[in-house]
């Protein structure tokens, strides 16, 4: 009974305080003490974090090998486009990669394309998620234009992204023995499970007059075509890497890896580069010093600001009540 009344009263006072705009409030003021403490705290947090991040990045071993020019035979280098478009010339090509540091498995294989606008609006929109999931049962593929149908029959998978599928292939040989490349589980699980149909098979694919990129095996359902799935996750930036597979053996220092590759994909007409990347990973992923540098930078600037502020604070002691530089007073003084 009593508690009820009390609760009622409490509610009433709360309402009163609310309407009178006098709710209990926390009113932090940026006193010099707080400011210096916060700056110092930021410095103390970010410098170590940055160093840890940098260390993680340095632990990652990464080998980048650009092959798009080297893989075009000398005589064709003047006109790389016709070379790549000429189906009669064999496109195989060998490259050597030297391991400069011990690489612990798994070693991720990426191909990297530069100046390739996978994030172009026309490109990004040119796909049909419904068709990828349901196959030919789904008819409305207008979004896939201009790679929608061929000979009045629908293309599965339709759209520019699928049509321009990357089709260079790589084989790795170390000391005469082929390195085993695991090409399973390179795509996101949610894509395999929910976006690409288990019973959808490629159909009428790359049958047009103009053939874009790679072909697909019509016997394998889309959900198992991991190269396609990886490719279909459009990249964010015009320079991007995509996962090709994993080498599940360690590579030692000074190992030389011979890469036998099929240089099929045309990046020459738009001046794109192709690179092959072998990289290990840390808890932060691949090699990138930026985050570490940024953290250290932020930490250092915080510390510097703390020191500057402290010095200024000590040097210019002044009562808070000095009003002489209030805007309206300043005006009247000058005028």
């Amino acid at each position, binding site marked *: 009974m009593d508690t009820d009344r009390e609760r009622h009263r409490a509610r009433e006072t709360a309402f009163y305080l609310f*309407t*009178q*705009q*006098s709710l209990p*409030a*926390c009113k*932090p*003021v940026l*006193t010099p003490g707080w400011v210096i403490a916060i700056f110092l705290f930021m410095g103390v947090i*970010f410098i170590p*974090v940055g160093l840890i991040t940098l260390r993680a990045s340095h632990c990652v071993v*990464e080998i980048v090998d650009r092959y798009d020019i080297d893989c075009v035979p000398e005589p064709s280098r003047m006109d790389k*486009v016709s070379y790549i478009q000429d189906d009669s010339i064999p496109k195989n090509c060998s490259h050597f990669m030297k391991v400069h540091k011990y690489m612990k498995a*798994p070693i*991720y294989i990426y191909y*990297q394309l530069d100046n390739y*606008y996978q*994030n*172009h*609006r*026309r*490109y*990004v929109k040119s796909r049909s*998620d419904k068709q990828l999931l349901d196959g030919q049962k789904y008819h409305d593929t207008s979004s896939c234009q*201009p*790679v929608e149908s061929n000979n009045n029959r629908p293309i599965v998978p339709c759209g*520019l992204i699928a049509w*321009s599928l990357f089709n260079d292939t790589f084989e790795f040989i170390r000391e005469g023995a082929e390195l085993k490349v695991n090409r399973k589980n390179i795509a*996101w699980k*949610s894509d395999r499970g929910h976006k690409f149909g288990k019973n959808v098979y490629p159909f009428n694919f790359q049958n047009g007059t*103009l053939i874009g990129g790679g072909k697909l095996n019509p016997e394998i359902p889309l959900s198992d075509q991991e190269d396609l799935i990886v490719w279909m*996750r*459009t*990249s964010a930036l*015009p320079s991007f*890497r995509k996962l090709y597979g994993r080498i599940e053996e360690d590579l030692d220092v000074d190992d030389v890896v011979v890469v036998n590759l099929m240089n099929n994909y*045309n990046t020459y*007409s*738009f001046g794109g580069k192709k690179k092959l990347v072998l*990289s290990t990973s840390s*808890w*932060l*992923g*691949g*090699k*990138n010093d*930026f*985050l570490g540098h*940024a953290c250290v930078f*932020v930490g250092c600037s*915080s510390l510097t600001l703390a020191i500057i502020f402290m010095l*200024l604070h000590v040097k210019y002691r002044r009562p*808070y*009540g000095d*009003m*002489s530089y*209030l*805007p*309206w007073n300043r005006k*009247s003084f000058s005028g």
Partner: protein
Amino acid sequence: MVGGRRKKQHFSRIHAFTCGKAYFRGDHSLIGGPGFSRVVYCNDPECFEASLLNYGGNYVRSTKYTLATFFPKSLFEQFRRVANFYFLICAILSFTPLSPYSSISNVLPLVVVIGATMGKEAVEDWKRKKQDIEMNNRKVKVHQGDGRFEHTKWMDLKVGDIVKVEKDEFFPADLILLSSSYEEAICYVETMNLDGETNLKLKQALEATSSLHEDSSFQNFKAVIRCEDPNANLYSFVGSLEFRKEQYPLSPQQLLLRDSKLRNTDYIFGAVIFTGHDTKVIQNSTEPPSKRSKIERRMDKIVYVLFALLVLLSVIGSIFFGIATREDLENGKMTRWYLRPDETTIYYDPERATVAAILQFLTALMLYSYLIPISLYVSIEVVKVLQSIFINQDLHMYYEEADKPARARTSNLNEELGQVDTILSDKTGTLTCNSMEFIKCSVAGTSYGRGITEVEKALAWRKVSPLAQDVTEEEGQVEEFKKEKPSVKGFNFLDERIMNGNWIKEPRADVIQKFLLLLAVCHTAIPEVDEEAGRTSYEAESPDEAAFVVAARELGFEFYERTQTRISFYEFDPLSGKKVERSYNLLNILEFSSSRKRMSVIVRNEEGKLLLLCKGADSVMFERLAKSGQEFAELTKEHIAEYADAGLRTLVIAYREIDEQEYVEFNEQFTEAKNLVSADREEMIEEAAGKIERDLILLGATAVEDKLQNGVPDCIDKLAQAGIKIWVLTGDKMETAINIGFACSLLRQGMKQIVINPETPEIKALEKSDDKSAAAAAFKASVLQQIAEGKRLLSSSNKDSEAVALIVDGKSLTYALEDDVKDNFLELAIGCASVICCRSSPKQKALVTRLVKSKTGSTTLAIGDGANDVGMLQEADIGVGISGVEGMQAVMSSDIAIAQFRFLERLLLVHGHWCYRRISSMICYFFYKNIAFGFTIFFYEIYASFSGQAVYNDWFLSLYNVFFTSLPVIALGVFDQDVSSRLCLKFPPLYQEGIQNVLFSWLRILAWLFNGVLSATIIFFFCIRAMQHQAFRKGGEVVGLEILGATMYTCVVWVVNCQMALSISYFTYIQHLFIWGGIVFWYIFLIAYGAIDPDISTSAYQVFIEACAPSGLYWLLTLLVLIASLLPYFAYSAIQMRFFPLYHQMIQWIRSDGQTDDPEYCHIVRQRSLSHTTVGYTARFEAKSKSSKERARDH
């Protein structure tokens, strides 16, 4: 009933007025012609002729919309706003392939925003509708035939109906008065709702119909009224009544207007002539001018700036896009073959790259639309409504005695309240209560009365404060007076020497007796005896007079009856100690006029002696005294000066005995003058009166306090400290106005006064002659000259930093407001510490307001309570109505209504300051968050070859403004407080922040926009550099478009919300809930949206659960970006707070140091910031203590 009726006294008995006789005047010949075609068949509204006329019903609609017009009309209103129209275009375009995002995600926010605004409109209109329903369903008795009157709804009234309106009921339509409960067929009408005047107006029916007293007499009543067509003129009416085959002219005297009220009359019968929208009051109602605050106007400009920015970005984008697209085909060969430039739609066609670029421009316009906050207008509206609720709810502005809270009638102007530069105040009813209190008197050279005025109270209170140095006098007395509150209205006199019959013991008891007698007799008040309570109350034309009669009553001379020829009163006879009945024959009343400045009565007392009793202003009275009657003149003059300085209204009281012969002569002349019908009638009367009002014998003087409202001097002082200029515009006499100026400390002794009042004898003479234009020219020349002189005085006193006051009278004002003079006049007025305009008409008040508003460009606030202030209230940037006694007219046309002047202090210093701060920071923040968001989208375009691909998922885009960032802004707009209300009032100079517009200067706005760009830059480049192309998790997965989008969006939500947390300094649980809730909500949304079928969630499918959350980089990056984006602002605000604090920040310092309770310290802070307070009692006190110090030094 008849007996009861007789008992009352009527004004009609004292004021001569012709009874029911009227003549056809010139304009009656117009009846029947164009504009005068209305024909009303009284008591027969259903007859054939009437049905042909088909006048409208009495249904009145005040709503803006009807059910049918609501949608089209309100939609139209909505899309008239440029921003909304732009979003509409975007929404339409989003259905075309141009759209960078899905149409539904774009349309939904627009629908939400427009829906919310329309919902608000609908609710407001529904309220009006309910009022209409109540009004239209009121009942009135209507004649149903056979002499039966039955209750009928107002809306069912028809032209020609006979209605019976009873006491204290409103008239349902415009009526012609036929008869009333009085024999003379008169009735009293209160027109408060029309013109704000509370005094009763007398109406009288035609003699021909005045005998229709009973219900049954209307059984066979038939008459035809022909009159003018409906028009808006309240004070004119032309018509004729055909009754029993005779024509009678009708005048406004017979017209009863809708919305006025029947008073003091039991019932009336009337014929309906105008119904519904034809009635004069509704014809008169104009749409109040819609006002917008300065901040909002500036906000529009910012929106235009952003539009310009938007177009600029779009142009840049489309140019680059056009170039890139053109290069897709090089000599017929495809470069970016994966885009299939050979087989493309117009939007990407390399061969028509220019067209594609132009179309891309439209896409970009849509994509960057996030630069312009779609929810800005609706958020501001919501915030303002909530702010108004807080204003309405504030108990400190609730007037308990009248049960009246403050009421913000329009919520548009809340923030304008924080920027008021000049207050233009009415006097009567605003500064004063409009009630006079008899407080002091000087009789026979002795000053009586220890009553204390509001000014003295304020001064005394000030002296008690520890800072005062010379607290010497009267402190004890103050305490005493607080206990003895005046119990009688209009009487605040305390002096045991006179009260309770003690005056008889005074040395000059004979003079005192005459003095009191004069107070009881010399007036035109009418007594109303309440027999049950045995008390008499008085109804007088002016409240001064009522105060005199009350004073006389309280001191033993109780006036209780008046007839045409006789004044009766009880006199306390001190010898017998009993009440004795006296009655004097009233012979003449020489009425008060502004030129005479006095009034007299001539009476014959019971002994048959003729007495002339006279009271008047000191300026005219002293020169009329007899040589022998100047016994106390010197002392009285001294007292009068003293009273006047205390802000009291003084009158000199004198009398003389007249011999029969003289009276007979006078009466002859006077009667003759009165019966004159010529232009100089007034003059003749004056002359006659002047002849007899001479050789007076001085009795003494009275001092009446025009009672200031509670706390007015204190409030004015605070407002003056806040740097607000206060002008008083009053219709009162100059003397009264000056008195009040003293009372409110707007004027003080030692202040130089520039009086512009060129009433020189030459001009008067010119005026008397027929040459009006010469008089006007001379007048104007003299005004000009006085203004020039004033300016000279002003510049000389500016050097000595002395305060100058300007006092202008209405007539001079007419000339001063002429186009060629007004700039000069304004310059002078602005230089003066206080300005008082007296005798100004409502129109002049409005003109002065407009002058100040338009010429200085500063924000003006007008405050008033009467119908005469309406123009001023509507003209000013903000009109504040006092919901006092003088009707509702001012309140109805005001923007904010308060019950007492003193609430203005809290309204401006607290709510005004808060609202100003809230709205301005809210708008700045709004633009900040949208710039920050919009620029990340733009930056991304650089990396997507300007193709229009958004980095974020469609729904992330569209919900940004509506969900993730809007609630904290609203919390900011509604709840933020830089300084608590107590400190706002303690440090009035804080208000200067609003006047100087410190918080919403262009510099500050641009700084916020820059901060937005900076945040966007840091967010975008940190994100893309950190997530460039390497794996972002242990598992080697790389970043796709959707992951970068989600990460960047997370950063934006964090940064924007934390920026808000950083920029406010007031956290209640509401802020915590909204800010942190906004962030948590983003994650919840991300999870929930990601869990939906990929059909709907598309690229956001499982992006958080599967990709982002397990990645350390994602979290670390969020933290880093957050800190890095906020660091510049934090450093800036820390340095500013420490080294260049704004005033509110200083107060925050003081508060956090716990020094607010140290009065010495606070005083110093206040003093230093007071640039130059020149009015108010603080200034007055300062001036006084300064001069006393100087005096002490001299000794």
